[in-house]
């Protein structure tokens, strides 16, 4: 799952997956906007067949947050 998520993030941010680590900040380091975050969520929903509630958007600040939220939603802990 990690590789797929990093690939999604890399595509949205226009960087390579190697440039990302858990602490990478989506806005401050990658220059992503709230629209880009939505794009990542939509892409993750398509990729993993999940539905991420809008209420979880504010939690997503770093690469680690993206991974955690997807994992929790997959586990039914949304």
């Amino acid at each position, binding site marked *: 799952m990690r590789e797929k998520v990093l690939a999604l993030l890399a595509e949205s941010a226009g960087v390579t997956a190697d440039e990302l680590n858990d602490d990478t900040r989506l806005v401050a380091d990658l*220059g992503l906007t709230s629209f880009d975050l*939505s794009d990542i969520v*939509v892409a993750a929903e398509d990729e993993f067949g999940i539905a991420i509630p809008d209420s979880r958007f504010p939690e997503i600040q770093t690469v680690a947050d993206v991974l955690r939220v997807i994992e929790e939603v997959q586990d039914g802990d949304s």
Partner: protein
Amino acid sequence: MEIHDLPVLADISDPDSLDFVFDAHVRDRDVLITRYRGTIIRPLKEGRYQLIGWQKSIYHFGGLNREVPIGAVITADGEGIIRDFRFDGRCEGSQGKNCDFSILHERISEKLIGKTISDIERIYITAGDVQCLHVFEILCSIASFYGLLKNRGLEEGQEQELATIIPTESGLICRDRHELLGGFNETEMLLTHCEPHRLNERNLCSYVNCDVHVRRHNEGNVTESLYAENFEGVYAQLNRLFSKCLRQEKRYFGLSGKVRYSMYPSLAGLFLLTFSHEGMEGSVDRALKIEKILHFIQAGEGRTPCLGFDGDLGIAKKILFAGNN
């Protein structure tokens, strides 16, 4: 000149005059919002390049009729190093004279001249870094489109986009046409309200329940539902809707990575404004309420205020205190 369709850019001999942007108007007040944006990159003599970016918004919200035209021209050398930056002298921000383009010009020139086009997105990460969302979007569009041409080995190219939002009997219709490197993508969104919008204490749309039928000229149609019970939710739902549109457009044009030359991210904010307008009752103070929403969007809740709202930089203060130091 009324702008109903996109002009043929190839027929314009002096695109850096930006007359085709500043002379474009929409007088039909049934059209709530028109936004026209685009980018032209073309070679000049002696190996230099000219990069032209523009955005023009035209609003007609019961009592508030406003045009916000902005155009910028960058000259770069063959290595992509920025040698000159200028705004068109007719630029107007949404806060009129308070949007001081001489200050923006000075600051942007200081930061960009001598840097490469590709550096723009590294220098300006958020709209707050520029203190003008419109100029931020124009600069990012230029940098992003330049990246596309470079990746495709092209020396010149152009893209332009026109979106309109018009009320219907049961909701709204939004049409968007994006022309890029000889191709085009057209999307029409028909919104049907299932319930009236509700507004919060700031007059921002905080409850939405509607269906959106999305028709694309090149793919099958889809119907989406928008439902949210608070302002943040409405914004998130709109971002979702338009990120799906952008994903479709990227697939269609064969684009990848961060695509900034697109209207879709802005349409989320423009729809929020339209929903708020629709949710208002009566016509008393409507223009003032819209102004307050713009104020919130441009300077509210911890955001770096845009230049037009920055009390330390407003033109009024400069004039009042000129010569007092």
